[in-house]
Structures are given as C-alpha cells and as structure tokens.
C-alpha cells in the first residue's frame, strides 16, 4: 500500500533513491543556504554584489569547494550525486551562488586537477579547497563565445618564459580571483595557463548593469604582455578538448543546479496560490492555476529524475558528454519555463524581489546561455542523432 501523500516538491519520491549520506549532504547545503545565504541574498542581488571572500571561506569550511575531486586522502568527499544535490540546493538559493561553486570546483580546480603538474596541484588545490584562494576560468572573449576556437588571446614563447596577451570576457569571479585558468592560442595549438592574478599586466574590470546573475561577479580580464614562467602551462591539456572537458564537468552540475531554482519557484508559487484570494477563492482553486502548478511540478520531478539518472551513470563511469548536453538542454529550458510560469501565478508581486521567482527567472537566462547555449546543445543532440555536425 502506498504510504503518505507525495511531497509536492518531490512528487516522485526521489528522496527514496538517495543514500543516507546523500540526503545529509543535501540537508547540509539546504540548511546553510536557508540560514546563512537567503537572509542576505536579495540585498546582494539588488546591489549587484557578491561577498566572494567571505562566502568562499564558509564554503571551504563546510567542504563544498572541490568536493567532487579527490583530496589528500585520494578520494572525493562526495560522489557525483552528492555533488549534484549540493549544487541543486545552492542554486535553490541563487544561481550566482551555484555559479561561484561551479567555477571554483568544476572549472578552475578541475582544470588544475585534471591537467596540472604535481607542483600546480600542490600549490593551488589545497587553498582553493579551503576557500582561501579563488579561481576563475577564462575561455570566452568579446568576439569568441560559442566558437571558442576563434579566440584571439595568444601566448608566445620568450626564452624559457611565456608571454600572454589578449582579453577574456564574461569571466565569473574574474575580479575577485587569485588565480585564472586562461586558454590561449600558442604555436602548439590551444593551451591552458595558470595565471596568478597579481602578475604585472593582469587587469580586471567588472561588468556592470547586468539584469541577471546580479549576485555574482562577472568581469572582463585583460592580459597585457603578461610574463609567465615556463611551468605556468597546464601540461596535460592540448587543444580545445582541455577546456571543453572542464565545461562538461561544470555542465553536469548545472543539470542539477537549475532544478533547485525551479523547485524554489514551484514552492513560492504553490504557497502563494493557496493564500492569494480572488473571486472569494484561493487562486489555487482555479483550473488554469492548477494546470500551471501541475506542469511545474512535473518539470521539477522529471528534470530531477533525469539529473539523478545522469548522476548514477557518472558514478558508474558511463556518462558521455552528449548525454550531459541532453541534461543541460532539457533542465535549463524546463527551469526557465517553471520560473516564468511561477511569475505569472504571483501576478504583480512576482515582479518584485520580495519573492524569489523573478530573480531566478532572470538568472536562468544566463544559465541558458553559458556553458554552451541552448542552440549549441540542441545541435550537439542533433549531431548525435544524425551524425551530421550542423554548427560549423
């Protein structure tokens, strides 16, 4: 006999598919976000700031930075599902918070972990894990977005040194980072560089007037003949494969993360619809509202199930990048639709920062674009289906 009525926020009882530890990881992230972040978040969003240093330290103490990578003990703190659940809860707070953790953990730390030398790993990973050093990841440029191979940033050899020049754009954590992973053309093809941001010639300019991811630092990074020692290059990365495999790692987190934003919107809309009275009835009693709520709950349930499925595949070492594209495409699009629908249920109140839905909605517009746009992932799926590459 089925037990209690389903939880509206977990319609399919996916909770039962998690291990006790996975649930505890989720609960930790959820309670930290609720107690420490949410009370201040709206203020950060409104002012367009993110206290990266402070948050990094707390996240480091809790163990959320690089949690999916092996530590000194040789194994990761949490498996792919625990990592995904943490990303989900962080993004239920705000996509900016999740972006911070994704960039630190899945882009910057992952690049050093996967492609770095022993010295680079020893120098950067422990402080980054502790939240004492912040990392960023510079691939996009003013004129190179979906087509990163067209980047203009170059690094040339000069004796034993490298000299790096160019401009990176839209770099999350750019102006608050201690270390930048910068991708550049060289005579040997595209290579990655570990660039301490206090090097002469490195400058950062924040991008202002954003209407999305306002509680996140987004910057332009300029490299003006920055001289780097010969061992600044990531020895294990050759060609675009390097940055793309980092992005694949980060996208996996997004597949989960956006479901957190969607769940927060569903939660807000559900509560609001029960309390808001029009025509002497709660608006939740109107069939059109119920359809919206049902569609939202379905999207959250199926999207989270998809994330969990991909997580179990990753655990088994079977997850392919095309499948991550399926997840990123489906879930990001679904989350954005949920946010927009939630906004309509909240009526005029929905456009304010008093409720989280419009904040999530505008954030998700960025998430739809970064880490591979909706269109690019569609074409990746198209290529997988047809064997024909349509985007170049």
């Amino acid at each position: 006999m089925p037990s209690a009525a389903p939880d509206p926020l977990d319609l399919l009882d996916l909770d039962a598919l998690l291990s006790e530890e996975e649930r505890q990881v989720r609960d930790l992230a959820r309670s930290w976000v609720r107690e420490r972040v949410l009370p201040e978040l709206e203020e950060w969003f409104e002012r367009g700031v993110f206290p990266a240093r402070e948050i990094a330290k707390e996240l480091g103490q809790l163990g959320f930075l690089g949690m999916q990578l092996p530590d000194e003990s040789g194994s990761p703190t949490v498996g792919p599902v625990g990592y995904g659940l943490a990303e989900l809860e962080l993004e239920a707070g705000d996509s900016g918070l999740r972006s911070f953790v994704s960039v630190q953990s899945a882009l910057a730390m992952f690049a050093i972990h996967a492609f770095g030398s022993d010295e680079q790993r020893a120098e950067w990973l422990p402080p980054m894990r502790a939240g004492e050093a912040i990392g960023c990841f510079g691939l996009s440029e003013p004129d190179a977005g979906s087509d990163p191979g067209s980047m203009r940033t170059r690094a040339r050899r000069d004796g034993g040194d490298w000299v790096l020049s160019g401009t990176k754009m839209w770099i999350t954590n750019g102006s608050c980072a201690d270390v930048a992973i910068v991708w550049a053309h060289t005579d040997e093809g595209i290579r990655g560089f570990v660039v301490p941001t206090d090097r002469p010639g490195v400058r950062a300019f924040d991008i202002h007037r954003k209407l999305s991811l306002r509680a996140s630092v987004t910057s332009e990074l300029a490299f003006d003949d920055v001289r780097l020692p010969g061992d600044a290059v990531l020895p294990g990365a050759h060609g675009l494969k390097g940055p793309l495999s980092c992005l694949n790692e980060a996208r996996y987190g997004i597949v989960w993360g956006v479901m957190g934003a969607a769940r927060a919107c569903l939660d807000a809309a559900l509560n609001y619809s029960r309390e808001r009275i029009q025509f002497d009835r709660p608006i939740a009693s109107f069939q059109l509202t119920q359809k919206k709520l049902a569609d939202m709950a379905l999207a959250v349930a199926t999207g989270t199930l998809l994330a969990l499925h991909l997580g179990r595949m990753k655990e088994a070492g079977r997850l392919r990048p095309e499948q991550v594209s399926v997840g990123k495409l489906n879930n990001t699009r679904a989350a954005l639709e949920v946010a927009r629908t939630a906004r309509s249920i909240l009526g005029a109140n929905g456009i304010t920062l008093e409720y989280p839905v419009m904040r999530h909605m505008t954030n998700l517009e960025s998430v739809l674009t970064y880490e591979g746009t909706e269109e690019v992932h569609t074409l990746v799926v198209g290529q997988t289906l047809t064997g024909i590459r349509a985007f170049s």
Partner: protein
Amino acid sequence: MDVVVFAKYVPTPEGTPELGPDHLLVRDGGDGALDPGDTYGLELGLRLVEAHGGEVTVVSMGPAGAIAAVQRALAMGAHRGVLVTDPALRGADALATARVLAACLRRRPADLVLAGIESTDGYTGTVPVTVAELLGIPSVTAVRAVEVVDGALRVERQTEEGADEVACPLPALLTVTAGATEPRFPSLKGIMGAKQKPVETLALADLGIDVEDVRPTQRVVAVADAPPPAGGEIVDAEVGIARIADLLVEAKVL
C-alpha cells in the same frame, strides 16, 4: 577532558508534534532530528575539547531511529556515540530517562556532562539535574559561558537580572542556554566520516537496569489546548517604536 553531551532525538523539531491516543508523543516516523536545544551543549563541548584535549561522547536514549540524532552529532564533530534503546523504555518519564543516562555515565564516567535546558518536545527541563543528583555531582543550570581554570570550572549562569558567576569543581553537569554558542554546521567530511566513528547501541540489560526501575511513575491523563493568550496589545505601526520601548521598560527588560 572527556565530555558527555546528551542528545535527544525529537520528532519534527520545527513542526507540531503529534500525540497518540495514550497522550504520549508519537516518536516513530521518519522526520525526527537532533533536538536543536542540544546543539548548544554539543558546540560548547566540542570547543572545550578542541582547547583542552579529550573527546566528546554523545549519549542518546530513544527509539532505534534516534541513531539519526547521534549521527548528526558525530557529523558535527563528536568522537563517539551511545544510543540506549529498548522496547521497555517506550513512554519513559523524566525520572526513568535520568536513571538510564546516569547509568551510561557510571559505565563510562566523564569530566563534564552537558545538556540542553529542556527538550523541545517534552519541556520538563528536569532530566539533566536529576542525572546530576543520581550521580552525586554538582550541576549548574542555564549556563551561557564556561571557562576551565586550574582543573575546575568558572561558569556564567543566566538569571532574570543578569548573570551569576559560579565556581564549580569537576566532574559536573551543566545545562546550556541557546545564547551560549553558535552551533557549527557539520562539514561534508564530517557527514561522510560519521559512519566510521564508534557507536554503541545498548539495551537496559547492558546497563544493568531492571525494567521495574524505568516503569513510568507518571501518567498523562488528559491533554487540553492552551488557552489563547489573554489581553495583548496590537501596536500601531505609526506610534509603534515608542510604545514598544515603553512596554519593554514596564516589563523591566530595558
């Protein structure tokens, strides 16, 4: 310095607990957790052993599911756990509970015992001091700060007017207020490592306690809703602050 912290598993600490037909709290079911009121003592205990060495043992009495409260305390940093669970303990009253906890301490003595002021489900507030009485050790209630000086305690005790400073030898038992510390979040490593920490699960027989000794001596015969608060005053937002300040002065809070 070895510290024992009492940790109670309470059903839905943030919700409204349910009463069964026997007027006892329904304690089975999945939604329970470590009593938030116990986390202040735990935090204090962790800080004391971090400063002075030793270990924190959490001791809980409850249904089998109370292991979740023990695990949570281990994830926060406690070193070992003890769970006393026995069908004969269902409906145990404050005295029976105190006997069980005291037996745990006789079995494995500690320098310092820390407990919450009262549980967020039963609210008797009598268990900790009863344990101290049974063990014949001093107890200080409503503690908001502790220092260990020359092998003894210097304790600040919250009172209506302010605070008492109390000197107290060890071993001792303290009940800790919510203002004493800010409980830490567990870390991911703590969560993942909690399962590896030693936990003993004991039945009454392991503690040498006879079923007769824990038979409840109290029985709840009826439960009634609390009367709605009488009087009260809704303060208009316009004049609000001044009026609230007056009220606080009247109540001798300011």
